[in-house]
């Protein structure tokens, strides 16, 4: 049965396999795969090699892993994949701040299948990894153009680790100047929580700016917080509300005036490609997420890459090694005495470098601007439609255009019906949508939800999405209890207590669960 042409709704039911845990399907003696064994010639030469393990370090009881035949393993994990809703399955404009764009299959196929990527060891002589180094070098040149900053490094294994790396660079910069009194970092409540968490991990005290009545980080509060103790500010723009801060350069100047550095979280850069850059706003450091803006898939939470960019003055602090090109060949440079060292082993996630490189090569400068403008067009179009849904409001900045995402609010729906954002979020699964992103904690906007319909989504995708939200709002007004007990057509039913803090209930492994619950 096709989608209803009038309502744009589907009679959807997600895959539901009632699949056992892998441990519950174990049949003693079954094998999932056989592994290579040492040839007889080897055995004859070395005998039983494991006898050299001292008795107290020998494994005496085999691990209680399940014993499952190969087809059953394949079927099990294929079923679990069917119970998962990736971008390939649904129009995921739900998870805003995450830029859930289409990850082109061509780059995935090359990265996952070419032995020049999959079977390369990171410690091979640099003469034998010239192709990989070429992509590192060229992607660096691309991101320099896109950001205006002078040097890039792709070692961090995600956006949060990129922020940590930038915090380490800020720490090294002040230490190199002999200034050990800068113990504070300033961030904003609508910047990703890693902008608070990562500098704190690097040893900083974190000061968080709350929004003013227009939704901008409070500039006066920041001026009051700035001092000789300020090491840096870690901020994003547009913030998670989708509001672009037009005075961002004043924040940066104020921080520079007290000797602090400014780090730009560009997780929300998708609407800015070719339009606005870190450089023009005056930033010293930035980071992009290659798994968001630059199309590498999100992989259920990674592998990921946080690409960090810095100004010339900070280049000497970047992690080692650095990829260089002398006009003929590419090489790795380790001898950089002021470098912060490493945040991750080897060269980071090389396949993501390939994917980002390929994606930029497929678009060029004009194509990247098309990405940005279409993502902003999509978001503005979606915003107009969502604002028309009963129960929805948008906080802050009335009359101002937002960029590639918007934080919405179900406060009125909750007041009118008792149905809150978590209820609507669960109900979405019944219509074949991914759950939307509410907001990072703490919720400043009440009953929040945040949508980001990036360039990958068609007008029809957006229209269907809006139709579903409208339908759920209608249901909330007509039968709130029904929405509160959703989902009904998903893989599983409502979880009454999704937050688990009691020691006797904590079960993060099957063995812990069986000890506590099945005893």
């Amino acid at each position: 049965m096709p989608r209803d042409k009038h309502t744009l709704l589907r009679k959807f039911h997600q895959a539901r396999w009632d699949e056992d845990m892998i441990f519950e399907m174990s049949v003693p003696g079954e094998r999932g795969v056989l592994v290579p064994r040492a040839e007889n010639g080897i055995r004859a030469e070395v005998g039983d090699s494991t006898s050299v393990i001292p008795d107290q370090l020998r494994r005496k009881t085999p691990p209680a892993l399940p014993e499952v035949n190969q087809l059953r393993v394949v079927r099990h994990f294929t079923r679990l994949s069917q119970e998962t809703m990736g971008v390939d399955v649904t129009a995921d404009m739900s998870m805003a701040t995450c830029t859930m764009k289409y990850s082109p299959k061509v780059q995935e196929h090359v990265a996952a299948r070419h032995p020049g990527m999959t079977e390369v060891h990171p410690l091979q002589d640099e003469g034998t990894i010239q192709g990989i180094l070429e992509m590192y070098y060229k992607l660096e040149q691309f991101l320099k153009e896109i950001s205006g900053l002078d040097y890039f490094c792709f070692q961090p294994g995600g956006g949060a680790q990129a922020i940590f790396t930038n915090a380490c660079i800020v720490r090294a910069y002040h230490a190199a100047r002999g200034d050990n009194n800068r113990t504070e970092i300033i961030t904003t409540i609508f910047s990703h929580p890693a902008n608070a968490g990562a500098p704190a991990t690097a040893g900083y005290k974190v000061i968080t700016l709350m929004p003013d009545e227009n939704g901008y980080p409070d500039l006066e509060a920041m001026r009051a917080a700035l001092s000789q103790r300020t090491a840096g500010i870690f901020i994003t723009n547009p913030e998670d509300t989708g509001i672009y801060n037009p005075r961002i350069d004043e924040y940066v100047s104020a921080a520079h005036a007290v000797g602090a550095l400014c780090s730009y979280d560009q997780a929300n850069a998708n609407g800015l490609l070719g339009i606005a850059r870190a450089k023009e706003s005056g930033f010293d450091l930035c980071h992009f997420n290659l798994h968001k803006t630059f199309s590498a898939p999100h992989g259920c939470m990674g592998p990921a890459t946080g690409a960090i960019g810095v100004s010339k003055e900070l280049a000497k602090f970047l992690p080692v090694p650095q990829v260089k090109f002398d006009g003929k060949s590419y090489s790795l440079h380790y001898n950089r005495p002021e470098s912060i060292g490493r945040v991750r082993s080897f060269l980071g996630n090389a396949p993501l470098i390939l994917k980002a490189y390929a994606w930029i090569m497929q678009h060029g400068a004009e194509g990247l601007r098309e990405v940005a403008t279409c993502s902003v067009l999509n978001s503005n179009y979606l915003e107009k439609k969502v604002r028309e849904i009963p129960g929805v409001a948008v906080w802050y900045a009335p009359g101002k255009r937002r960029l590639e995402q918007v934080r919405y609010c179900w406060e009125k729906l909750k007041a009118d019906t008792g149905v809150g954002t978590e209820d609507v979020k669960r109900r979405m699964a019944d219509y074949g949508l991914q759950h939307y992103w509410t907001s990072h904690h703490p919720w400043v906007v009440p009953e929040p939800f945040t949508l980001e319909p990036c360039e990958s989504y068609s007008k029809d995708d957006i229209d269907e999405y809006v139709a579903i939200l409208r339908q759920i709002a209608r249901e909330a007004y007509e039968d709130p209890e029904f929405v509160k007990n959703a989902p009904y057509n998903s893989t599983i039913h409502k979880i009454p207590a999704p937050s688990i803090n009691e020691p006797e209930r904590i079960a993060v492994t099957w063995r812990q669960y069986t000890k506590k619950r099945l005893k």
Partner: protein
Amino acid sequence: MSKNKITYPYIPNSVPEVKAQMLKELGVNDVMDLYAEIPEHLKYHGKMNLPEPILDEYSLKRHVEGILNKNKNCSEYLSFLGAGCAQHFVPAVCDEINGRGEFLTAYAAEFYADHGKWQALFEYCSLMGELLDMDVVSGFLYDGAQAVATSLRMASRVAGREEVLVPGTMDPQALMVVKNYVKGISGPGITIKTMEFDTTSGLIDLNDMKSKISSNTAAVLIENPSYLGFIETQAKEIGRIARENGAEFIVSTDPISLGVIAPPAHYGATFACGDYHPLGIHMQCGGGQGGFIATHDDMRYITEFKDKMYGLTETLEQGEYGFGNVLFDRTSFGSREKAKEYTGTSNALWAITAGVYLALMGPKGMEEIGQTIMHKARYTAKRMCQVRGVERAFNGPFFKEFVVNFDNTGKSVGEINRALRGYKIFGGKDLSGEFPELGQSALYCVTEIVTKEDTDKLVYALEEIAG
């Protein structure tokens, strides 16, 4: 109206008519009107200097493959490289499952629409729990190096102390990562003290350890098998001394060894950590790493984990599994700078893959692969030492890696490795920079995929080069 003539396959609304219709709906003439909030002086008015695009998919594929073809790889070359990443057997099923579009393109959403993802990740933690014989596993760290760094920070909080002891043979890459994680702003956050090692065996010098451990010691870290390959045979005694002094005992281990070597919990470890890359994940030039940390079921430890942990729970439907967030406020998602440490996107797809691997292998597979590796590694070491001037640096038992010294060949490791490449062989990692006290030594790694013929080829080449 846009002047753009190209309709991009990944940008559906780049179709001019659709774009015009949407702009009309918004009451604006030009898409740039939507950028009214960005002041002119903050806009970029230049044109990015990027190459002309390769628009069609076939040509792009040719282009990217052309670049990758410039690499040599371990399918065409015989590799003896390890040091934290090694070429292991990757079952086809692992690639099949991590290539599923649903897993590949899902992200952070919770519990209903992504139930299958949570079950797969929960099963990965559970399978690792069996391998490690520990109840609590947090499986989504960036790599083994970060798992060590975070374990040390956790131990420091648990013990309420700010000094840690690490082995002198510690993986230098991991040590560099650790230093960034333990550094404070005005003085060290956690002080690292290095335990000397015995140069004939590589083992930790227990007298030196005893002289350095004190009531300030939060943790004693060992690697087992060590970075330099040998098995730290004193592990149990080291753990005993650590615990006697009120310090946590952290063991960084290679999970593929645990079918034959005892998991750290069996010899007293309070933390087991490491990198799950060997479990069914391609090397990808270092892109296949992923870290794990495990402890016993003790709230003193559970409350100190920094990443999200998903607990098995029940739904409203009788007997139906669901998942929930365990102690969410530990994480920076829950409490920002007050969190235990920052968290974020790491390597979940590889964690799912490692789970698939362990499900395929079962207890028998893990035992057999451990045996195979040990047989083959010992065979290779023995055969290499038959080459004139080539000797093992340490005399004790090892797992898949061992240090070979070339001093008596009169050649440097760099020279030997260059010559080996002529035979399409990647020799072991040159240690002369990291451990100059070992002379011209290299770290050789032998996994289950190396055949007798491969080893014999290596030995033949070495005889030609150095013998």
